[in-house]
């Protein structure tokens, strides 16, 4: 995928969404025909704690411009303690990305419940705008050899 | 520290002489410093915002900017509910939207950063520090006086702009009046409008607004009504006689400013508290109450 920052460049953002809360919220946003930018691709996971930090690094390595991890609000997790692990893991992840020279704002975590359709739309819209400002993720792409 | 910039408002130098005298007496007595804003202008009251949005924002802005230029960095004390409301609207608009603040600066040709807050006399006298100061200065009691505290509409509404007291059943003035030993009664027209300038430009339509205030106060056993605004006071005090004649009611409820009752209890003479300056005779009710309370 050639990387030329041409006008109208659209960021590619991967969002890991937990099946019980955020994925449901996203579906509800669809049910209510809410509109949001097209550049987020959702990958469904049973719980936000399923997201191994290696997946996030792999996404950036393969050229993703932004990664979003969404789950239930702390205390509401369907698996009781899942999102506590998510929270701890991804505070460290922000530091790791900074250490690697990736702008930590490319990676964000949000708590979105099954009934917060509007919050999902607003999160996707805001994150897309933020990533668009940051521009394409050239850091890893140049290093890629495939 | 009880130090404020002070915006008296046009009516204090005219019909609201009772308010002006009692404020200066009480302020001096409890050591409250009121620095009058130099060369202040009229806030525009209802007429400005009836005519235009920017006129309504600009007129109070000049006063706020003058206070800011003084550099004292004090909050602004405002005795009149209408001036208070208009200045609060300007501060709210300036703080909410940077573009509006800049446009106000352009219109008034002065810098205005909306740093200091605007406080009504009610909010100031309800502060614990001021309440304590007043309590210490109490010399006499108005024990048997049943007072209906009338807040008027602009001190309470709109909520998000005044941001202070309850819009239906506020208690600030009740607590202040309780300091004098008088009994603030429970009644239902605390924040119902008195008609303000409509008493002049639409008198027949507006007069019932005052009658129903008196009727509810009387029904709940009030022997005095207390206000915290020159215009509410004027409308109630000046028209009680007129209503008794027109509607055949027998309201006998004098109307005071809350600072007058504080002044009387702090030892002010009838003259210093302006008790002889009311349209509806107000001296006797205070005098009898003080005697009965053994002043």
């Amino acid at each position, binding site marked *: 995928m050639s990387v030329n920052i041409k006008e109208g460049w659209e960021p590619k953002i991967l969002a890991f969404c937990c099946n019980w809360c955020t994925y449901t919220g996203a579906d509800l946003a669809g049910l209510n025909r809410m509109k949001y930018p097209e550049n987020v691709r959702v990958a469904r996971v049973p719980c936000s704690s399923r997201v191994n930090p290696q997946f996030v690094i792999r996404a950036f390595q393969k050229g993703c411009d932004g990664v979003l991890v969404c789950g239930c609000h702390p205390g509401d997790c369907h698996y009781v303690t899942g999102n506590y692990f998510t929270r701890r893991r991804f505070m460290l992840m922000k530091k790791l990305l900074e250490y690697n020279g990736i702008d930590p704002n490319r990676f964000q975590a949000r708590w979105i419940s099954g009934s917060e359709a509007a919050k999902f739309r607003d999160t996707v819209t805001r994150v897309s705008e933020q990533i668009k400002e940051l521009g394409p993720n050239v850091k890893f792409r140049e290093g890629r050899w495939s | 520290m009880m130090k404020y910039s002070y915006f008296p408002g*046009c009516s204090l130098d005219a*019909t609201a*002489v009772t308010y002006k005298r009692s404020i200066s007496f009480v302020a001096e007595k409890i050591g409250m410093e009121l620095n009058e804003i130099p060369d202040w202008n009229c806030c525009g009251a209802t007429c400005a915002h009836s005519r235009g949005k920017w*006129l309504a924002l600009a007129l109070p802005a000049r006063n706020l900017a003058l206070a800011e230029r003084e550099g004292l960095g004090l909050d602004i004390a405002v005795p009149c509910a209408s001036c208070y409301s208009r200045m609060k609207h300007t501060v709210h608009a300036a703080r909410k939207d940077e573009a509006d603040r800049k446009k106000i600066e*352009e219109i008034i040709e002065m810098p205005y950063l909306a740093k200091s807050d605007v406080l009504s006399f009610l909010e100031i006298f309800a502060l614990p520090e001021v309440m304590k100061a007043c309590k210490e200065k109490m010399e006499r009691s108005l024990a048997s006086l049943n007072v209906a505290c009338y807040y008027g509409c602009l001190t309470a*509404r709109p909520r998000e702009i005044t941001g202070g007291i309850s819009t239906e059943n506020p208690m600030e003035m009740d607590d202040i009046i309780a300091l004098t030993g008088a009994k603030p009664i429970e009644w239902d027209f605390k924040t119902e409008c008195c008609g303000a300038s409509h008493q002049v*430009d639409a*008198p027949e339509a*507006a007069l019932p607004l005052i009658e129903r205030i008196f009727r509810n106060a009387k029904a709940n056993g009030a022997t005095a009504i207390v206000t915290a605004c020159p215009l509410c006071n004027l409308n109630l005090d000046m028209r009680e006689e007129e209503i008794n004649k027109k509607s055949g009611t027998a309201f006998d409820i004098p109307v005071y400013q809350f600072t007058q009752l504080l002044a009387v209890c702090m030892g002010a003479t009838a003259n210093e508290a302006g008790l002889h300056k009311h349209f509806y005779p107000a001296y006797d009710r205070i005098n009898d109450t003080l005697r009965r309370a053994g002043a």
Partner: protein
Amino acid sequence: MEKVLSKDENKALAPKIAEQSGVKLHECYQCGKCTAGCPMAHAMDIMPRQIVRYMQLGMLEEVLECKSIWLCAACGTCYDRCPHRVDLTALIEALRHEAKHHKICAVREVDIFTETFLGNIKVFGKSQEVILAGVYNTLSGNLLQNMNNVPHMLRHEMVKPEIHGVKDKEGVRRLMKAALEEDDK
């Protein structure tokens, strides 16, 4: 002849005025709580609720020509108690500006009072109550209004001969001119 709603040409003007005053007309479901609480409703020709109804249907002239927008005392009760937070006070304020723009005013006295009051500020920078009352009475034609209170006012120095206006009268006048230009844009 009935009102043809679909064909009204200045139908777009009503929503624009509402939007300027931050009011979403569709939010009002005509419950009547504003009229019920309005202190001046008894004297109004169309009820506060009906003002919103006319605006919802884009029927702007009826609202601009009504007495209600001038009898409103701007006390804010309607907005405070409205179950859908429709700011009727702001809407009526905007309608007054629009009516003034079209030189329509169904309650002449209110307009005379406003103009006299603002005239006072333009001249003195402050509102001189005695001049305000005098000029208003003459212009409005009810010469003896409140005259019975004048003796009392004189005796108790509520009304003083000397006029203490603002020193920087010129500054206040410039400010008012600039603000009104902005308003009349």
